[in-house]
């Protein structure tokens, strides 16, 4: 089993329990080779898109099927009165939620970026179906807590699913986008009732800006300078609803729900769509209230689409770079992710994508001290995902050269499902026009049949991240009598995972409680404490210069994959319990007997 060392070395209560579960016969014989695949307890679809009600129904089905581990709740109400669904995955036998390092997974903050919700649902389903069946999944569920919010913008999702898909990125708090004192009064209209917000083109022989391509009659291409085409484009399907002389100028919402967060928040003229203050949006506020009351969350994943990216902050250049210690951690995780997710690049938001102020993962990293990624799900390169096909695409005469590729794919792989043929329509303002174009489910989301792979690979990356969140271990207690009732006691503290208990940025910003090393014992007094400089050489320890040595603070946490040895001079007799407690890496303790 991969990363088995994580289990083997631990002496904390959690993992002992985990092992005992595994040993206790929970593992089913499905691991063997002789039987058919075990049946799933809950069968869900991952090759179709779920609307809000379907998503909620699936969540409830899972919660009912696995009541011991799953708790369904709502983080709060969206503007439109929908639930911001949350599934908590916790094994109560291995401790209460807040005692264990947690991973927060969310999706769909942009209403049109839908497939992250299916990834989230898949994650819950997969963890539950494989608990007790797969050793590593079992260990993960036992060691960690997962908080999964599949759609943090349910209004936007429903707008996308039930409507034409147009204008679904935003949430639904009304904004007067055209400054006329009216709110959301003139959005696009599905004039021909085909469920699609089509493009409008008008046939103007010899006077237009576009022409039909000779390669494929569905392709409308701009004409070269100096030539005339037969069509002009008149924007998207709609009318002047409010009679102000403009079309579609104030659709529903009109802001960016992923710019309303508390780190590097900037006003609208610097960052469009940020609203008037951070956490003004009910959805952002509900999510933040939850995160701030769950300091055990160490890792965050916020699924978006599209492009195939594993994004980390900072969102803006002027925020400077992350501290090198933090970058090292992100790099380990991100570069591993690149190998797990073909066509995905691990990049920094501002330098690799675009500048974002007040974005969600900037807040969770800077303001909450959580290691945070945002995956942009789906890369267009995955339509023709083999080196041979990539090579064919280089040939401009080939049927899958870039301009024709999407039509080829639609014709042969999706049976023409995604393209809406141009049809004549008598527009109230523009007269005879044609409507047509691509459906909402093409482009930013994968073809439905490819979504299970997308879900699984991204889940796997996120579970890997969860597994590498900090986990503290205490071991190798040694007690040496110095003189009389004075003892030298050494303990090794080890963080067995990649992530530190407190990131360097969190320590700079003072946003995570310090780790504490405590000594308790009825007849024990701490004379001094220090870090052992070298376990194999004799030298004075590096003195810990704090007033209260029964409660030593480690403000910048314990780095990943690191062992530190503390040495106490203790006076007294009997047992001394030495404990290391951290908000994000759990608690580990040992007992030293002074005798």
């Amino acid at each position, binding site marked *: 089993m991969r990363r088995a060392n994580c289990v083997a070395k631990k002496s904390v209560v959690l993992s002992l329990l985990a092992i005992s579960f595994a040993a206790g016969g929970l593992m089913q014989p499905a691991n063997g080779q002789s039987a058919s695949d075990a049946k799933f307890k809950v069968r869900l679809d991952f090759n179709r898109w779920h609307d809000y009600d379907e998503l909620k129904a699936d969540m409830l089905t899972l919660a009912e099927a696995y009541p011991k581990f799953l708790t369904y709740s709502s983080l709060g109400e969206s503007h439109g009165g929908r639930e911001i669904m949350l599934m908590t995955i916790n094994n109560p036998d291995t401790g209460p939620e807040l005692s264990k390092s947690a991973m927060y997974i969310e999706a769909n903050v942009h209403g049109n970026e839908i497939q992250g919700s299916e990834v989230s649902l898949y994650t819950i389903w997969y963890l539950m179906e494989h608990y007790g069946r797969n050793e590593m999944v079992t260990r993960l569920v036992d060691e960690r807590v997962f908080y999964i919010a599949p759609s943090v913008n349910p209004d936007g999702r429903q707008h996308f699913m039930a409507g034409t898909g147009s204008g679904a990125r935003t949430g639904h708090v009304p904004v007067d986008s055209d400054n006329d*004192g009216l709110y959301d009064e003139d959005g696009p209209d599905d004039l021909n009732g085909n469920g699609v917000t089509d493009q409008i083109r008008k046939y103007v022989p010899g006077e237009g800006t576009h022409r039909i391509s000779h390669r494929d009659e569905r392709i409308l291409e701009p004409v070269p300078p100096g030539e005339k085409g037969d069509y002009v484009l008149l924007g998207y399907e709609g009318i002047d609803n409010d009679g102000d002389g403009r079309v579609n100028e104030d659709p529903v919402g009109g802001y960016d729900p992923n710019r309303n967060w508390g780190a590097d928040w900037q006003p609208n003229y610097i960052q469009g769509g940020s609203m008037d203050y951070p956490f003004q949006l009910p959805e952002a506020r509900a999510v933040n209230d939850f995160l701030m009351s769950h300091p055990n969350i160490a890792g965050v994943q916020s699924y978006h689409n599209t492009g195939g990216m594993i994004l980390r902050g900072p969102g*803006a250049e002027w925020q400077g770079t992350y501290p090198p210690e933090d970058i090292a951690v992100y790099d380990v995780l991100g570069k591993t992710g690149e190998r797990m997710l073909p066509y995905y690049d691990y990049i920094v938001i501002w*330098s690799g994508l675009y500048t974002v102020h007040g974005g969600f993962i900037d807040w969770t990293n800077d303001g909450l001290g959580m290691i945070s990624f945002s995956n942009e799900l789906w890369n267009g390169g995955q339509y023709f995902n083999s080196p041979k096909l990539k090579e064919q695409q280089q040939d401009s005469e080939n049927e899958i050269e870039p301009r024709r590729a999407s039509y080829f794919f639609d014709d042969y792989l999706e049976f023409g499902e995604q393209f809406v043929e141009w049809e004549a329509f008598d527009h109230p303002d523009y007269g005879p026009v044609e409507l047509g174009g691509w459906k909402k489910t093409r482009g930013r989301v994968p073809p439905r049949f490819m979504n299970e792979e997308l879900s699984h690979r991204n889940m796997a990356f996120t579970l890997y991240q969860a597994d590498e969140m900090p986990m503290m271990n205490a071991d190798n207690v040694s007690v040496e009598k110095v003189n009389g009732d004075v003892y030298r006691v050494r303990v090794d503290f080890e963080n067995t995972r990649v992530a530190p208990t407190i990131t360097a940025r969190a320590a700079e910003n003072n946003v995570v409680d310090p780790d504490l090393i405590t000594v308790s014992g009825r007849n024990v007094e701490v004379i001094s404490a220090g870090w052992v400089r070298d376990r194999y050489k004799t030298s004075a320890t590096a003195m810990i210069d704090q*007033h209260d040595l029964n409660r030593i603070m480690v403000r*910048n946490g314990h780095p990943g994959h690191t062992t530190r040895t503390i040495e106490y001079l203790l006076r007294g007799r009997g047992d001394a319990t030495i404990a290391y407690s951290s908000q994000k890496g759990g608690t580990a303790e040992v007992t030293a007997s002074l005798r």
Partner: protein
Amino acid sequence: MHYKKFVLLLLLFPVLIAQVVAASTSADWNAKPAAVADPIDGYHNFAALSAALQRAVRGNSEIARLSSLGNSLEGREIWMVEVGNRAGVATDSRPALLIVANLDGDQLVGSEISLRIIDYLIAGYGSDEGITKALDNSVFYIIPRANPDGAERLFSGVQTGQTTNMRPMDDDNDGRTDEDGPEDLNGDGLIGIMRVADAMGAYMVDPEEPRLMKAADAAAGESGTHVLYWEGIDSDGDGFYNEDPLGGVNLNRNFQHAYPYYQVGSGPHMISEEETRAIMDFAIAHRNISAVLTFGPHDNLVNAPNNKGELAAPKELLLPGFADASNTDARKTGTFATPRPRFFRRAQQDRTGRPSSGRRPETTVNKTDREYFTRVSEEYKKVTGLESLPATEKPAGALFEYGYYQFGVPSFSTPGWAPVSAPAAADSADAAKGSKRNDTAKKNESVDGEILKWMDAVGHDGFVEWSTYDHPTLGDVEIGGFVPYRAKNPPTAVIDSLGPRHGEFAVHLASLFPSVRVAKVEVTDHGGGVFRIEVEVENGGFFPTSTAHGVVSRSVKPTMVQLEVDPEALLSGDAKTSFFPALEGSGKRRAFEWIISGNRGETVTLRVVSQKGGRDTADIVLRGE
């Protein structure tokens, strides 16, 4: 619990008042108060404030209404009084002045001034022309006590000078909340400063004024002799004294402009507090707010922004800062060297191939707007008589800066009074001769020295002489220093005088509001059902319909000029719905022209809607030559 009362003030009121507003001509200005009273009696605790507000609006609902914007953490209302004649145009469609006081818990003077502004406006309606006009055409939103929980600490218990609200915060981030606040060790009812002789100290007794301390300057041959702490014990045994007191968040450091991220007192994030959120939600629901006036430790009224658009340098009290400095390291304790993790490789540098969108938020007043700030400042000084402020703070996350930089309107802050001693030479014959020398002397004087001099001059008992105390862990210490609140709040008699003057100033601000109207309409009948409509829109106010920065920041909506005809009837000219970003005041006009098809005798409505300058309509009858 007991508290020390303000004492010895009122005997000296005449002197004090005369000195605060030297140029006064008011009849009652030099009147001696009838009786000597405890000055705290003059300040309103929350119950008294609530009663006073209810009294003020009772029977006056046509012109004044009281409501609550929300509740503080301890459940007190964030009161807001709307003052404006509700007959006529809906008040929320009229230009408004938002007045907010007492965001800083220890700045109660602003609360008291606000109360008097409310009284001034209500009392003057119908008799004073300026007030009547202001209440008929505009509206005042007055939030007299934005931080009722913090303010309440003046009225009970030991005087701490609480600036924050009462939200429990782990100020030193040690995993414990509010566990080490100050203690009144010597039982004098207030929290002073402890000075401890210590050769490791950075401070020394100020040779010019032995009651004060100064930072030792090694380059001047000085060495430190003392360490300074806030009065109290090390309750949590961490080696720091009083580093995590009760509360909280300083509400005037919790707004969105120049927000001090992750600092003690600034909150977990912008607008994190019930109180600040209540104010923000009110403000963004009332975009008719055309100007903001806050009372607090910041100033841009006595000293207008300079010709670069910057504020005057702050002048902060030294002694409290020295005591604060003893806890600077509390948030660093427990920082250990991190060994290079064994998985550490050369970190990925943020790729710089793609240039960042480099636009940064403005931090200085727009050149075009400066003149307006200067004009208002001149009027402020004239009306209030305030000429200089010895103590001011540097704004960071302050509401008044939000008001300009993000809400986009002229926005002001003032302490509302000044602890200024009369010029030394004021009574002497050689005043003019000596003034230059005095100015030079003043420059060398510390903020503390200046305030102490004022206290001495007016008999304001605001400084506790150092007296020895046997401290449980520090041994022999001396406790003394400024009395909390007193350097920031004057005796009520000063407020009784300055309050109405600020009322007058508020009315003046309202008189400057932009005011749009349809100034000229001309219709030409071209025959065949074709008409030409020519219109001029005027701003008859003083302020432009938007500040220049309001345009830059897109926070002020452009003024809309809309001709209510079918879009198809519009043949040529301006858009049916036209906008302009800003129109200067003082009668500046802007012209619009449409050619439409219609029927002779038909009426077409023209609407002009300005977010900050009101609205106007004109019914245009299609007839003409």
